[in-house]
């Protein structure tokens, strides 16, 4: 079974993002970039499926500028067999990415697509669901457990208030939640090996997809700052403040 994993290059989760002075976005120049953490979990799951003999080939796909090659090399080092970059400098929104991925899928015919539930930059939480919709495939979002059985998959999902288990027909799109697995560290020998793995480059034009953004970003600002309050001496003083000053109890 061929498994495809979609990965996004984002500002590293440890970086404190700064809003640009002109309000057009956040500073990404000279900032550490990494693979979206949820996509790393998706890739780890695919590698485990391969190690378990369920997946036969793992294809990693990323859409974005040429620098996404780095992210794809990381994917290859983690365990993907080959990679495709759909290269464009246009700012991609989820619907456009879903259309690009759909187009790649029509050539590659994977049985399963795994990707992060959301990217930690735009926090949209859309692409997996949109991709499943465009393909007419089943979807299992926010997965915390994936079991492949024959022509289907049993997926446990993290939902408000607990867990839900679905049985989905393959092919399917699965999006990953944090607790699905803990991604492995990349080892130096694997980084060396990854350099020799095939990385193909395509373009939206070649795939016949219009990626023009649908949402205009008018401005980006810092959120209002919360002011630090006061320190109180003990529980008694706290209860007094909560009752008489904040009037919240």
């Amino acid at each position, binding site marked *: 079974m061929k498994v495809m994993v979609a990965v996004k290059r984002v500002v590293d989760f440890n970086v404190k*993002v700064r*809003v640009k002075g002109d309000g057009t976005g*956040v500073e990404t120049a000279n900032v550490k970039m990494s693979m979206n953490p949820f996509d790393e979990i998706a890739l780890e799951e695919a590698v485990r499926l391969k190690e378990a003999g369920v997946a036969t080939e793992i294809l990693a796909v990323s859409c974005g500028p040429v620098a996404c090659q780095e992210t794809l090399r990381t994917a290859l080092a983690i365990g993907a067999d080959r990679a495709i970059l759909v290269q464009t400098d246009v700012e991609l*929104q*989820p*619907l456009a990415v879903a259309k690009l991925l759909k187009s790649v899928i029509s050539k590659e015919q994977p049985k399963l697509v795994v990707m992060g539930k959301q990217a*930690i930059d735009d*926090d949209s*939480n*859309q692409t*997996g*669901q*949109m*991709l*499943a*919709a*465009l393909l007419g495939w*089943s*979807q299992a*979002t926010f997965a915390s457990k994936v079991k492949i059985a024959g022509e289907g998959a*049993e997926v446990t999902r*993290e*939902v*408000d*208030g*607990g867990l*839900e*288990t*679905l*049985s*989905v*027909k393959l092919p*399917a799109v699965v999006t990953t939640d*944090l607790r699905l697995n803990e991604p492995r560290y990349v080892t130096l020998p694997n980084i060396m090996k990854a350099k020799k793995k095939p990385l193909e480059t395509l373009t939206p034009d070649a795939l016949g997809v219009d990626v023009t*953004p*649908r*949402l*205009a*970003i*008018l*401005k*980006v*600002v*810092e*959120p209002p700052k*919360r002011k*630090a*309050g*006061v*320190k*109180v001496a*003990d*529980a*008694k003083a*706290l*209860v007094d403040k*909560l009752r008489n000053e*904040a009037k*919240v*109890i």
Partner: protein
Amino acid sequence: MTQVLVLAEHDGKTVRKATLNTVAAAQKVGGDIHVLVAGHDCAAAAKAAAQIAGVAKVLHADAPHLKDELAENVAAVVVAIAKQFSHILAPATSHGKNVLPRAAALLDCQQISEIIAVESPDTFVRPIYAGNALATVKSADPIKVITVRTTAFDAVAASGGAAAVESVAAPADSGLSSFVGREVAKSERPELTSARAVVSGGRGMGSGDNFKILEPLADGLKAAMGASRAAVDAGFVPNDWQVGQTGKIVAPELYVAVGISGAIQHLAGMKDSRVIVAINKDEEAPIFQVADYGIVGDLFKIVPTLVEELKK
């Protein structure tokens, strides 16, 4: 013409509070508000939706294959009725987030996720980078498909309305997926995202057992219980307690953070609470920078005295 559809969140009998917050967001957009109740044997929920203040009409889709509200089937209902609406809104709950992007793609619309403000019928504010930046975005799509961060909009009244309930046909079962089971965490406490008060513990709790000392505090405040990602990752408490960027976004009247240092990822989930209290032994902990009231000290001593003081 502005006509807004709100996808209701319901349990078959009643509508959940998230629906009321979403109707509030719909009111900011303006125009007629219709509420879609999709499910099986959910006539009672449709009736409850008709009572919501400000709702003009309830659309009720009832079919056996809508019972478990699978994304494929619910999205199909939304798409089938979408053309008469200028806006389609759903709460940004796990259900809304699962269903709405699927419908948006089928309508060839770029969804706008988790809005926190409506600037005009085509312009909205949404947090990005875990709330570390706020983006104002304008949509050119014919239908604005939107999920709503419920904590950003004050709920409308659950009663006072008298909308007509109209049946709508559900498209056939997609047959793509089926429901296997559900494990719902049972609790006597209020639900985390709608509770008036929340008591959360962090890594400083030391163990899952130690979370027991927070229970009488939560009882005294009639609070839901939550946790930081660090506490969840350490295995102290289940994942659905997690408050933060990768967990739940809460904005209660009172948020009490116990043994939580205040990582950015946690702050993203609770910084819009009205009053924040922090109890931590490290006076340099970043949580104190957002807390209205802080106590520096040993939580294992402070929490029990706090419980006693609350009883007075």
